[in-house]
């Protein structure tokens, strides 16, 4: 469904040039949830933005078997939609939910607006009463539901998710992740999820690409991640850190790992 080959993105020119993504390649079959994990500045979001056509990239991008060029047609744009991290920043504060959801329909010249908006709201677990509200009248979780409804309303095949839950409380994160999985199953979507949280990625994805300093260092299936079997030293370090900060199930294992750390810290000179 999605294939990128030797994708590179550079910002700026000359001495101040920054290579945000260097030679990234992967292929995502239809119906897979693929994860992109890494720390801030690794280039995860830039890969997503290149796929959505928001930044200029070198290399090959293929979506639904079709090579993408700098200018994309309406059918190509409709196929791929994006959900951003901060729902407050990504929804126009001056527009009511009704208008936010009507806009993609107008752009893609879809009719039956009333029914589609009602259905989109119902699908993300909101009711009619939310249709005529402004973003500031909604909670963070509800706002992210609106952002998801907006992404889905024109019937895309691919959903790009850029840290969709990292601005939310844990209990709300659980609701949104459950919702995304339900929608994925119901619509047979292909999803690309970017997150810094390994636990979120492991919960949602079938395969995971680990990014570090603009490069994909490793692509591994989730089962191997769960067993802690990453090959690349950077992936291992990332995994170890998330054990320590408590992203694992077993507190005993976490504590043991931590005690070991303390010992080595105390033995360090100084």
């Amino acid at each position, binding site marked *: 469904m999605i294939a990128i080959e030797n994708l590179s993105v550079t910002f700026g020119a000359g001495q101040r040039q920054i290579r945000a993504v260097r030679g990234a390649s992967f292929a995502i079959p239809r119906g897979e949830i693929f994860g992109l994990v890494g720390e801030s500045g690794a280039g995860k979001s830039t890969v997503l933005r290149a796929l959505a056509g928001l930044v200029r990239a070198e290399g090959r991008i293929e979506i639904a078997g079709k090579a993408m060029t700098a200018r994309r047609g309406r059918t190509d744009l409709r196929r791929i939609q994006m959900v951003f991290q901060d729902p407050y920043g990504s929804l126009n504060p001056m527009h009511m939910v009704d208008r936010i959801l009507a806009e993609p329909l107008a752009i893609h010249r879809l009719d039956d607006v009333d029914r589609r908006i009602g259905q989109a709201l119902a699908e993300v677990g909101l009711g009619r009463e939310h249709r005529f509200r402004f973003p500031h009248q909604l909670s963070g979780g509800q706002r992210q539901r609106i952002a998801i409804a907006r992404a889905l309303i024109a019937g895309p095949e691919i959903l790009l998710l850029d840290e969709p839950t990292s601005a939310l409380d844990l*209990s709300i994160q659980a609701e949104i992740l459950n919702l995304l999985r339900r929608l994925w199953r119901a619509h047979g979507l292909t999803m690309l999820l970017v997150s810094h949280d390994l636990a979120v990625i492991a919960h949602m994805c079938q395969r995971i690409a680990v990014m570090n300093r603009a490069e994909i260092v490793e692509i591994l299936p989730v089962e191997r991640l769960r067993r802690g079997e990453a090959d690349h030293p950077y992936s291992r370090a990332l995994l170890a850190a998330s054990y320590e*900060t408590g*992203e694992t199930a077993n507190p005993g294992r976490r504590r043991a790992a931590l005690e070991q750390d303390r010992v080595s810290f105390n033995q360090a000179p100084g």
Partner: protein
Amino acid sequence: MTETPILAVEDLVVRYRGQHRETIALNGISFVLGRERLGIVGESGSGKTTVGRALLRLLPPRTEVTARRLDFAGQDLRALDEAAMRNIRGRRISMVLQDPKFSLNPVMTVGRQIAESYRVHHKASRKEARERALAMLEELSIREPGKVFDLYPHEVSGGMGQRVMIAMMLVPEPALLIADEPTSALDVTVQAQLLTLIDALIRRRGMALLLISHNINLVASFCDRVMVMYAGRVMETCRAADLAEARHPYTRGLLACRPVVDETREELATLARDPRWLEAAEP
């Protein structure tokens, strides 16, 4: 817990007075803190940050703070005037905030900021303060303290900036450190390093730590006890090691709704909030 508690709080109530309505941010919080590490966990709006700010009297004007008891090292914090309070803040109780980008002075080298923090609270020459600051940086595992001393905040990374903040807060040798989401703005690999570092320093100096965070698992790994807050009340306090056997449905819900790396689940548990939690809070 030791003989004399460092902190004893009983029935702490904080009300924010707006023009039209009053918001109760804390609704009767009580806890005792010894030379230990206590974690305060809760979701946004639970009042966890207000606890730290109320202790240091850092709340905005028109906020009403009442408590039956608010003792720090045997001293009644309620009775202190502003001058005496200034002696407590920074000197005896200090606070590390979430994002070093906003809490460091951008036009002063990080080293001078640490040295200043020492000189505000101790009679010392510039030279002595500088030495203290350098020693502190070294204690925080900064490799070339002399070099880092002369850097401006924008020249250091997020993790380094937060170490500088911690150095500033610990150099006056306080008895209690309040860390409010100290690592939430940082990458995971840096988070673990920094928390291990804070932990080692706290232990070495025999200080008390109040770690405020939204991440219940993180708090459980780094603290002795965990206090779970919801809507301005304490739902439950338990030993971190016993968190898996927590009784309160809110605590259990918080633990269950988080995805974990080494477990497969089709659906994540969601939290059903029960209005009765607000009545049946822990005494």
